[in-house]
Structure formats: structure tokens, C-alpha cells
């Protein structure tokens, strides 16, 4: 390519590059601010004019995170709670949704369509619609303020979503392999477990990640169901920085970053799965 051609190509690509630059800046500026705020002593955030580079720099906000039981704010505990709740939500939802999605994909049986539509319908309603009765129910079975209340509560979004996504994935897997296994004499269950499931692993991983991210960040149900400090999940933990007396923005942003890093890392590592499987599965029409 001549220099002229290269230049022409660059110019043609300029609008795209500009758009990207703006978008990347748009996406990242709030994080830069949070990082800055977490690295400064809280008072510096207010006394000087707003700025993006931390000055003076301090690690005290992060140090505060790893001191459990101090100041009534227990970041490691919140982290653990979120981990337990999110993993359990994913596990339970997958356990129950995978067979159901398989059935909706492979079998035809009486009531299949109405059942499917009803479950999908459930995914439409705002969580708050279920919240009040669920709160009363959880209280009646003494599950309030426990992991159980959240794990079960989160089923209201994780289950329909998982069924829908997984059905899409199963639809995207040609049935020939299972048909062959069945012809070889395998039972339905074996065909499912030994042929279909392994092929669906990318889809399972993608669904798991998607559900995990939703559960990790869930705020409304946690707000209603959890009241003791040591049962709080991370989103509630952020809220704990709002005392009667003041807002500890330094601690809050440090926690926000601490809360986001694991998800970001997991996502970056597994994003290939997530992206390819999610879009292929959802788009396989």
C-alpha cells in the first residue's frame, strides 16, 4: 500500500476511531474517578476542587477494608456473603433449569408451550412485585436475614432467565449425536447427561456468568431481606458507608472497587466463553 492509500484508509477509519475514543472515555471516566477517590483521604475529596488525579495519595481506605469488625463495616464478611449467595444462586438455578431447558428443547409433551410461556412471562414482572409476598413468606418460615432468603428470592429472575437462555443453547446443538446415542440403546437420561450436557458446556458457563453478575450486584431483595450487619452482601455493604453523620466516600469507593475487581477479573478471563456462547446461543435462529 502506498502512503497515500494508507492515509486514505486512516481517514476513512477516523470517524470510527473517534467514536471509539469517545465511548471508551465515556465508559472509563467514572472508574477513574472512583479509583482517585479511593486513593485519597476522604476530606481531600471536598476541600479541593474536583479533580481526576489523586492527590495526596493514601492507602488507608483500602487498609480499612481488610480490618474486619472495625467500625461496624466488615468488607471481608460482605465479600464472603456475596460469594456464597451468588454461587449458590447460580448452582441452584443451573441444577434446576438445565433439565427443564433440555425438555423444552427436545421433547414435545402436553402443556409444553403454555408452561414455557408462563415461565417466560414470569421474567417480565419487576422483582418488586414478588418482593412483598416473598418477604412475608420468608418471615413465616424464619428464613429472613439468611442466605436462603436471597438464594430463593433470586430464583425469581435467575430461573426464567436460565431456562430461556439454556433452551436457546440446546436448540443450537444438533440432535444428531443424541439420536445416535439413543439408537445405540442409551436411555433418555444417558443421552442427556453424556452427550448433550458436555456439548452445552459453553452455554452453561455463559449462563452461569450472566447469572453470577446479576446476583452479585442485586440490591433490592438484599435491602428488604437482610438486616444484620454480618449478613449483608456487598451492595448493602456500600450502603453501610452512609452513616447518620457523614458519607465515607473514600471507604465507599474503595469497597466499590474491591467489589468490582473479582467480577472484572472473572469476566476478562472467561469473556470469550461468555461472548461467543451468549450471542451464538441467543441468536441461533
Amino acid at each position: 500500500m502506498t502512503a497515500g492509500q494508507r492515509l486514505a484508509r486512516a481517514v476513512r477509519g477516523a470517524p470510527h476511531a473517534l467514536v471509539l475514543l469517545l465511548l471508551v472515555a465515556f465508559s472509563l471516566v467514572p472508574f477513574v474517578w472512583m479509583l482517585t477517590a479511593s486513593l485519597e483521604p476522604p476530606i481531600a475529596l471536598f476541600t479541593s476542587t474536583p479533580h481526576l488525579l489523586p492527590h495526596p495519595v493514601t492507602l488507608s481506605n483500602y487498609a480499612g477494608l481488610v480490618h474486619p469488625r472495625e467500625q461496624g463495616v466488615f468488607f471481608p464478611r460482605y465479600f464472603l456473603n456475596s460469594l456464597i449467595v451468588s454461587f449458590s444462586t447460580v448452582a441452584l438455578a443451573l441444577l434446576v433449569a438445565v433439565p427443564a431447558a433440555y425438555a423444552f428443547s427436545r421433547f414435545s409433551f402436553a402443556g409444553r408451550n403454555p408452561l414455557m410461556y408462563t415461565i417466560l412471562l414470569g421474567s417480565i414482572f419487576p422483582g418488586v412485585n414478588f418482593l412483598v409476598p416473598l418477604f412475608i413468606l420468608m418471615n413465616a418460615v424464619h428464613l429472613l436475614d439468611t442466605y436462603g432468603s436471597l438464594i430463593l428470592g433470586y430464583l425469581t429472575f435467575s430461573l426464567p432467565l436460565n431456562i430461556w437462555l439454556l433452551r436457546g443453547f440446546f436448540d443450537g446443538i444438533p440432535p444428531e449425536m443424541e439420536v445416535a446415542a439413543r439408537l445405540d440403546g442409551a436411555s433418555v437420561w444417558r443421552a442427556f447427561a453424556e452427550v448433550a450436557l458436555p456439548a452445552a458446556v459453553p452455554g452453561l458457563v455463559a449462563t452461569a456468568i450472566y447469572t453470577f453478575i446479576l446476583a452479585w450486584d442485586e440490591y433490592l431483595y438484599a435491602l428488604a431481606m437482610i438486616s444484620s450487619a454480618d449478613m449483608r452482601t456487598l451492595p448493602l455493604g456500600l450502603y453501610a458507608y452512609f452513616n447518620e453523620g457523614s458519607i465515607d466516600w473514600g471507604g465507599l469507593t474503595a469497597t466499590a472497587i474491591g467489589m468490582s475487581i473479582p467480577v472484572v477479573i472473572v469476566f476478562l478471563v472467561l469473556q470469550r466463553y461468555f461472548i461467543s456462547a451468549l450471542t451464538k446461543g441467543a441468536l441461533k435462529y
Partner: protein
Amino acid sequence: MGLTRRSFIKAGGAALIGASAIPQRGWAAAAGEYAPNKTISGDLGVWDWSAAPDNYGVAQQQAFYNWFPEQHPKIKFRMTMYGYTDYLPKLEISFRGGGAPDIVRVAIAWSSEFINAGVLRPIDLNQLGIPATNFWPQALQTNQNPSDPSGTLYGIPSNNEAMMLVWNKGMFRAAGLDPDKPPATWDDLASYSKRIKDKTGQAGFGMVAKLNNGNTPFRFAPAMWAYGGSIFDELTAKPTWKEVRIDSPGTVAALQLYDRMYNVDKSVQSSALDSAQPDVANLFLAEKAAMMICHPSDAALAHQTNPKIELAAGLLPMGPARRAVVFGGSNFHINKNSTNVDAAYEFLRAYESPNWNARLAGLGSNPANRAANNAPAQIERNKLLLFNDVTIEMVKYGVNVPLVSAGAHIWNETIPTMLQKVLLKQASPQEAASAAAADVKQSMKS
């Protein structure tokens, strides 16, 4: 240092914690000191909520709840500590459906709901052994049923508090104001605010006007009362909470004052409509607001976080009608179905004993039992708490929040809505007050 109570604790609380690590034995016996009755037995269940993030308060709670069963080995003691946010629904559901314990401690604003529902046991002050005059009259009011003329008490106060005016002396000086003299009247407050804004460019008064937020009425109601306005008849000696008076001239005057500060003088912070107390506190700490209304613990926190600020505190301003502040605190109630009333009274006696009552008030409150004012523990606290004397003085002017079941709605929604309508110029003060009156009447019905 963070903007939390922990930094305050390090300085002052540590001393208190150290002293209180030795339970009752460490204190000299004060008059009316408590002697445990070790013969009392049976089951006793108590629900309380944690003083967190007040670490000193938490330590006192832990000390007490270890000490009490120690002193009463025959009592099977069960103590459950809750977080503040879902405590009320838990209480409601358990009193309705069963499972409520013998004793509960609740915020003052919640008591009326349970009193009206008839699930509480009347308290006999003779059996308790504390005369009624030891308690603040407003506090006793919160334990009565307004429609019961006999004045039977259905609970006793555990701790009481009131807010005060805090200001930045340096900013006063910069504006040419006497740094030692707070504004005497609400009108003066507005003038000071304007002057500070004109001379320093920073907000004078840190205004709290957020919707759906309890901080807002806590700071607006004192102004309303000072001008003679009220929601019901809470300004009278024996309120009945029946007649709606929120659309009175006093309320209108207070709304006009706020309107003047926000819209005309523009002397408050621009984000007032989204500001709760923590936001105002942050601005105060940054010396971007010169005055704020808050608890003494907030003032102490401010001092710890930014020692450069020359802090001062004084009484809330007067209005043409009076000086007023919201009467705050908590009450203890005994479950009507309690099976161990003797143990319940024993517990209350212990909690209300002067030294414990003082210590259990934590850093944000003061003992309900005024005999505690001279207890060694209280004297120690006064030394370590900035401006505690001011706030004790303010409690005298305390006026109660609406002690009706619609109280939460009226307090957290009706009042902020009325205020925001005026500040956003969506209604005149009179119109906003009339709409608020209609809303109050509506919520009293349903």
C-alpha cells in the same frame, strides 16, 4: 482518618471503653444504684438494636448484655440484636403473628403503633422503683395512648436526645459575624446565611431538603414549631393528635423562610433538594457550609475529621412563638403476653440504673433517667463528648413527632413533599401547606 465514628472512638472512646471494661464494680455507687436481685428466675427474651457504627455504644451494649445474665444466674436470658433497617417490620410481624419477646426497645416514633394495637403491658412505675419525675414529660407522652385519659404508661424511655446548631467560627469571622454568637432567631439564621454567602461565597446554612428522608423533617419541624405552626396539637401539654393544624400561619412562615434562603438569597448549598445530613456534614467539613443542625456526636465526628475547623455549638434559634427541637430517643416496652414480668422489671431496673443508663446512651444520646445526670459515668461522658451540655439543655425544648400510626408517612413524606413543593416553586407556601393538610387527613383515615 475516615469520616466515621471510628476516628472519634480512637481519641475519646478508648478511654471510656477502657474504663467500662470493668463492669459495674469499677464505678462508685451512685444514689439509687442498682443491686441485682439474684433470686429471680425463668425465661427472659429481649430484642434490641445495635448501636453500630457507634463503637462505644456497641461496647456498652455488649458489656451490659454480658453483665446482666452473669448477675442473674437463674434467669435464662436470650438477647437478639437487630440492625435498624428491618427491625420495625420484624417487630410488627412478630407482635401480630406471635414470637415477640418479653421486652423490646424501639425508637420513639414506633411506640405509638404498638401501643394503639394493644399488644403491650402497662408499666407500673412503683414496681419499677423510679418516679415519673425522673423522666422527661415528652418521653412519657410517647408511651401513652392519646385516647386513654388515664395516662397509663405502656413503656418507659431508655434514652433521649435532641439536636443543636453547630457552626464554623472561622467562617463567621470571615463574614464579619461574631464567632461566639449563634443566630438568635430563625430570621437571624437566614440573615447570617446570606451574609456568609455574600462575603465568603460559600453556603451559610447547610439545608436538608431531601424527599423520602427522615433527616428533612427533623430539621424543618423545629422551624415550623418555632413560628407556631404544628402538624397536630403536639405543642400543647397533652396532645390528642386529632386536629390537623399543618396549614397554619406558622407553617407558612417557616416555609417562606426556607424559600427565601433557597430561592431568593440562594445562600444554601445548591444540592439542598438532594441533601440528607451526611451530605451537609461533608460540606461542613470542607468548609463549604457554615452552619448545620445535628447531633452532638456529629459535631464530635466533625472535629475529629477536620480539626482545623473551629467548632462551636449552641441552642437552636428561637421563633416568634418559641424555641423548639424534635424530641428523640427510644422506649422499652413489655409484651402483654410476657410470662416473666418480674424478670422484665428486673431487666428494666438494671438498664435504667444511673451508671448503666448513662453508658448505654452511647455517644449519640443521653440517659432517659435524669438521676443519671450526676452519675460518675455521665460525668465522664460529658468530659469526652463535645457540647453534651448544650444538647441536654435543648432536650427541654423537645416536641414530639406525630405519635400516630400514620406518623412515618407524615414525617418522611408529607413534610418533605410540602417543603420541596415550595422550594421548587411548584406551589406557594399556603398552597403547599393546605395540600399537606389534606394529605395528613387522608393518611389518618386509611
